[in-house]
């Protein structure tokens, strides 16, 4: 066990966990932020996507010992300061079916749009390709990302 001070969603949280614990389980079990989901445990599905210093990252294959100096953002922290423009687009397009993968999809989309504010459809598809959805919401995901990009034209 080791103690870490995590910078997460704008706050500092101390945790005492094994150094090789995947960040996913620290976020879910220790910090009780359950919006981030477990899907595959192997970085294949994207359900566990969070941001490390703004970069979309698979928390299931990221050890807690590697993130001590980084700012962590989860779905719960996305709308702090009212900054997120992706979630309203997700609601407007009524994207979710079962909804389980959607936190990861939204985290992926938000990080992508921060770097690529005016994406082409092909860029959207490529950016979202690592996030699996068994319900098949892919078209609405594309539409929501495009809508978010359009809606944020003046925001950046």
């Amino acid at each position, binding site marked *: *066990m080791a103690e870490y001070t995590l910078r997460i969603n704008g706050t500092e949280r101390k945790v005492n*966990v*094994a150094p090789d*614990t*995947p960040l996913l*389980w620290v976020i*879910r*079990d*220790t910090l*009780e*932020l*359950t*919006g*981030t*989901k*477990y*899907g*595959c*445990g*192997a970085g*294949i*599905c994207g*359900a566990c996507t969070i941001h490390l210093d703004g970069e979309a990252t698979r928390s299931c294959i990221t050890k807690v010992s590697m993130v001590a100096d980084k700012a962590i953002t*989860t*779905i*719960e922290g*996305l*709308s702090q300061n009212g900054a997120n423009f992706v*979630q309203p687009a*997700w*609601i407007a397009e*009524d*994207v*979710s*079916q*079962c*909804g*389980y*993968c*959607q*936190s990861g999809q*939204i985290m992926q989309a938000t990080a992508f749009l921060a770097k690529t504010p005016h994406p082409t459809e092909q860029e959207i*598809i*490529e950016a*979202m*390709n*690592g*996030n*699996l*959805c*068994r*319900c*098949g*919401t*892919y*078209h*609405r*995901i*594309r539409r929501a990302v495009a809508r978010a990009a359009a809606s944020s034209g003046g925001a950046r």
Partner: protein
Amino acid sequence: MSPVTRRQFLVGGAAVGAGLVVAFYLPRKRETPGRQNDFAPNAYLHIAPDGKVTVVVARSEMGQGVRTALPMMLAEELDADWQNVAIQQAGASTLFGDQTTGGSASVRTTWDPMRQAGAAARAMLVAAAAKRWGVSAADCTTDKGFVIHSASNRRVGYGELVEDASKLPVPKEPKLKDPSQFKLIGKPTARLDTPSKANGTAEFGIDFRVAGMKYAFLSRCPVIGGKVASFDDSETRKVAGVTNVEKVGGSAVAVVGDSVFAALQGRKALKVAWDDGPNKLLNTDAVFEVLRKAGGDKGVSLQSAGDIGSAKGRRIAAEYELPMLAHAPMEPENTFAHFLGSSCEIWTPSQVPQDVRDSVAAAVGLKPQNVRVNLTLLGGGFGRRLEHDYAVEAALVSKAINAPVKVMWTREDDMRFSVYRPPSVHQVSAVINESGMPVAYTHRLISPSIAEQKGMPVDAGIDPDLKDEAAFLYPIPNLSNEYVSPPCAVPLGWLRSVYAMQVAFANESFLDELAHAAGTDALQYRLRLLAEDKEIQYFDTRWQTARLRGVLQLVAEKSGWDRPLPAGRFRGIAAHGCFGTYAAEVVEITIQDDEPRVERVVVAVDCGQVINPNILEQQLHSAVIFGLSAALRGQITIEHGQIQQVNFDSYPILRNNEVPVIEGYFVESREAPTGIGEPPVPPLAPALCNAIYAATEKRIRKLPILNG
């Protein structure tokens, strides 16, 4: 949230005493005999004095939209203000009949009761207002949560009427709206659960927690049917945070810890000696060998007409083969259980809360009424959560360690220790006349029975699922639709559309073969077979050739079947009816690097009255993508008695960059609604393989299409 019972309505909520609780169809069994204030034991609706309408949903939300569609049906008849409607999830209860969520049945089985509940409440509210105003109820109307008396320009909100309305008798046969009066049903309506699924607050089974809860992962024999011979937990016990190691039944060992990671690490360190049992040499070939050997067995008849032996002409035959499949819902299996000695509390993502209750009760030695089963959201279902193995495990572990526990499965557990779509072999043949039309048609479905394997009642050797899924809807004068159910060593389960995915693949591929043999366009060939309006009674469903023809014509029109395709593009068509719904699809492909690339799928369905076109579109997309994942790469294989697929790398599902353009259409209909979650799945694979034939003249008779 907690299970909704009549009692809780009466005593549980703050506003309930003054609220209006409406029940509808007459009780089949009175739960609390003699209670004077009961309207009836089936409480689906509560209106609070502030006008808030709460609709109880007694089905499981797994993405298909029941938490929106079911309340819409009730709110329509109530004339509620949709903006003021909330839902409450019912857990396992005795008040709602069968609460199984499956068979694309949620809308069709609640269509009458939900509307009746709303209509009865509306009638009572109108009566209360009319009495208060001293006017005739017939002169009052309702709109968006108000009773209105236009003549005197008065209106009153439902909330203000609940106390008066509660004292009135519940109408036994409330008048239902004519569909022309619908204000909500049939309108694209946003899902009620979307906001919570966009901000991380939606609660799935994996998210449920209580203070002091433990986590458990089970170690199971890699060989199907194997058992624990012995285990050594000395290394496991050294893992920080591991608290218990317990044998569960004869076939698993649970490692329990204070955290998910502790339990996972503990399981990794566990050494189990397995008794592999009889399946250690089992492989995929052996599974199919059993099916092929049964190929000559006498089948049971599902459907027959005329005499297939009497038909004269040219005989064409083909054999099709479909693999086992896994469900792979995004949320792996999990359940929270707290065994409390004389009772047990369960929180589970399940399609069968009542089965959970009964099986948990039997497993831990309680009466069913002392097991409280609460439902969370389900992170996908697809039939996997019609099983409740994981819930029973949780109850057993909680009892063994005397603590609240969450049993969790990893993705690898989900792939390797699940139940699987049965393998199937199809022997199909036809006798065609001089114009190439079939005068005799035979389909022999050879596939193990899911129900039989589970020890469920199987009437006359016919797996009950076949009655919803395996109808052959083209009237051919001499017909034999037969079923042979050989045994299977692999645990089987119901996968979205179940046997329909299999029989539609064989029938609709073979019809394409016949159309090519006849030199006739594949659409025209089908329309010619369906030229006459006929009714086909198949078990409990009266199918209509006109409606199948209707979806074929609609999909042809919308896809532009009569127009030539651009160079390099090819298409195929298929149709099928199951769960009371008709579906037809046109799949357009190109060939890239010798592989088919699906460019466009057009779907047309006739599912009777559509409740919410927004959710219907979701389901059409979902079904097409589900069917495409299965057709292209879906297969579960076995070596040395072990499932070979372990995660989404070896069992790939479609990614964003592979999905085609999908266009969904439905037939405007006032017929009672039927199912939509499953029926658009079956036509996909045959339509795709028919397109591949159009492109390559290569007939695919064995799935998946891309092998490896």
